[in-house]
């Protein structure tokens, strides 16, 4: 049986992962661990994996992948009611979770590793599409039942192509603070394991002293962030810090402000580091485009070109598709990392490939004469607040299911605006959103309006409130 990402072909003594609790595991031990659990975890079963950034969390994830079980990665901070409704809907066969939330679940403990447990639930066997490898939620924290279906081919090819354009080798070491359940965090893990490199996991907040001591002491070569993480890094004077081991600084998860982009560029120049901005979506197994480091100065603000194995095009508003020359319209991506499609129910987990390698991104772009792409807007209804994708329809549904009022969500990546039609409910709705989603209260505003303002095509008008 072949191993996920070929981990059995790596130097057995090399470290695969370490974390800020002082745990570590070598490739050899990781393979042994996966072997050991192969009979415990039924093949083609469904697993809810509540992922912390730790060695134990990684080991259980890799064991699921090796046993050909299908994990859905979720934040351990997901609100309990939302977890219950996901369990009811998808009836997982196993739960992988840190000790502190295990009391949510009624199951038999079949494996313990550090503070992590593997629980077997009393759910029926499922019919899962034979190429289905992994599920990720479409929306960061709303407990959305809409999932992205990944194939084995998606993950293997994405790991291969991403490690190729970064030029990753076995001596690399990624410092990972982005959560494992977040597509880009997972991409960092896969691309490094693919080449036999190491991952340094931290679950400490950037405002913890532990985060900074690990960052300095672990001598990472690759650092990956989203725009908000670079804001914090800057505030805490990262750009003045000397990190001799660092060779790649990379960013995804939304557009950097002009100022932060320049800071990254300047840091890279002064410290002999490559700055590589990337763009992608969960639907494309994280990364779809990147800017070559030698172009990051001349093509500021660009998302660059397709990653190896991928191809970009634009469909303009006349429906005409073009692959080169200046154009504007919706960005389309083709490549082996394009996921199978969505699932909205248990039955959907048996669906075949809906996309056949073609992804209509919903992002509006322009392409210049040199073939570089620039994001100018978004067709789809979601925001990225602090790097977390927030589906506006999901928030509207959560509010509508719990309150008797009309509501509409809009805004931009700095702030979400929630219009509601009852003046006495603004604080209640605001508290509700915080409780359900964990969003910071200053990242959105609940505004009372008498009626939801709409234009003649029925589109909600938010302009007055942004």
């Amino acid at each position: 049986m072949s191993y996920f990402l070929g981990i059995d072909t790596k130097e057995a003594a090399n470290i695969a992962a370490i974390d800020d609790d002082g745990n570590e595991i070598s490739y050899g031990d990781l393979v042994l661990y996966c072997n050991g659990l192969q009979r415990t975890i039924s093949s083609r079963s469904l697993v809810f994996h509540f992922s912390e950034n730790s060695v134990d969390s990684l080991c259980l994830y890799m064991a699921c992948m090796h046993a050909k079980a299908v994990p859905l990665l979720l934040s351990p901070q997901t609100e309990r009611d939302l977890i219950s409704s996901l369990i009811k809907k998808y009836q997982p066969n196993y739960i992988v979770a840190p000790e502190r939330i295990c009391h949510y679940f009624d199951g038999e403990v079949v494996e313990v590793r550090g503070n992590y447990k593997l629980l077997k639930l009393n759910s029926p066997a499922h019919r899962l599409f034979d190429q289905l490898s992994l599920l990720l939620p479409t929306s960061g924290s709303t407990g959305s039942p809409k999932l992205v279906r990944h194939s084995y081919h998606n993950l293997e090819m994405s790991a291969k192509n991403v490690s190729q354009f970064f030029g990753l080798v076995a001596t690399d070491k990624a410092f990972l603070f982005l959560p494992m359940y977040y597509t880009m965090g997972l991409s960092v893990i896969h691309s490094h394991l693919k080449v036999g490199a190491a991952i340094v996991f931290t679950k400490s907040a950037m405002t913890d002293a532990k985060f900074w001591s690990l960052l300095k002491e672990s001598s990472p070569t690759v650092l990956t962030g989203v725009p908000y993480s670079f804001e914090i890094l800057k505030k805490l004077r990262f750009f003045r810090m000397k990190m001799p081991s660092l060779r790649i600084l990379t960013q995804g998860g939304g557009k950097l402000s002009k100022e932060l982009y320049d800071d990254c560029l300047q840091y890279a120049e002064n410290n002999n580091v490559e700055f590589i901005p990337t763009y992608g979506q969960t639907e494309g197994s994280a990364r779809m485009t990147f800017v070559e480091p030698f172009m990051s100065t001349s093509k500021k603000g660009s998302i660059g070109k397709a990653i190896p194995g991928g191809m970009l095009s634009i469909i303009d508003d006349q429906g005409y598709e073009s692959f080169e020359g200046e154009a504007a319209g919706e960005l389309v991506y083709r490549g082996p990392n394009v996921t199978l499609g969505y699932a909205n129910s248990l039955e959907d987990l048996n669906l075949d490939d809906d996309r056949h390698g073609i992804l209509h991104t919903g992002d509006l772009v322009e392409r210049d004469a040199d073939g570089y792409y620039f994001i100018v807007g978004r067709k789809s209804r979601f925001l990225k607040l602090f790097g977390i994708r927030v589906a506006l329809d999901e928030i509207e549904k959560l509010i509508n299911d719990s309150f008797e009022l009309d509501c509409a969500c809009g805004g931009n990546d700095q702030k979400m605006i929630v219009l509601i039609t009852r003046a006495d409910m603004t604080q209640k709705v605001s508290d509700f959103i915080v409780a359900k989603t964990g969003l910071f209260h200053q990242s959105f505003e609940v505004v009372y309006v008498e009626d939801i303002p709409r234009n003649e095509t029925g589109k909600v008008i938010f302009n007055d409130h942004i």
Partner: protein
Amino acid sequence: MNTLETYNAIFTETFQVEENVLDTDFNSDTVEKWDSVCQLSLVTTMEDTFDIMMEPEDIIGFKSYEIGKSILAKYDVTIA
């Protein structure tokens, strides 16, 4: 408003709590909402309000209602 009132108002706004819960036990271990987003927002508002610029170790160290006061004292801001 005196500096204590201002200091308290920044806490109540950042954490969406009533003033009477602000005491020696109000810290990053006891307040569930206290994450890096909150802490950064708290510190940035302190900096803007008191017109100071904190060192990284003080931003990281700003982990309780009480400690905050002694950190601000280093920048000649007396909370009283």
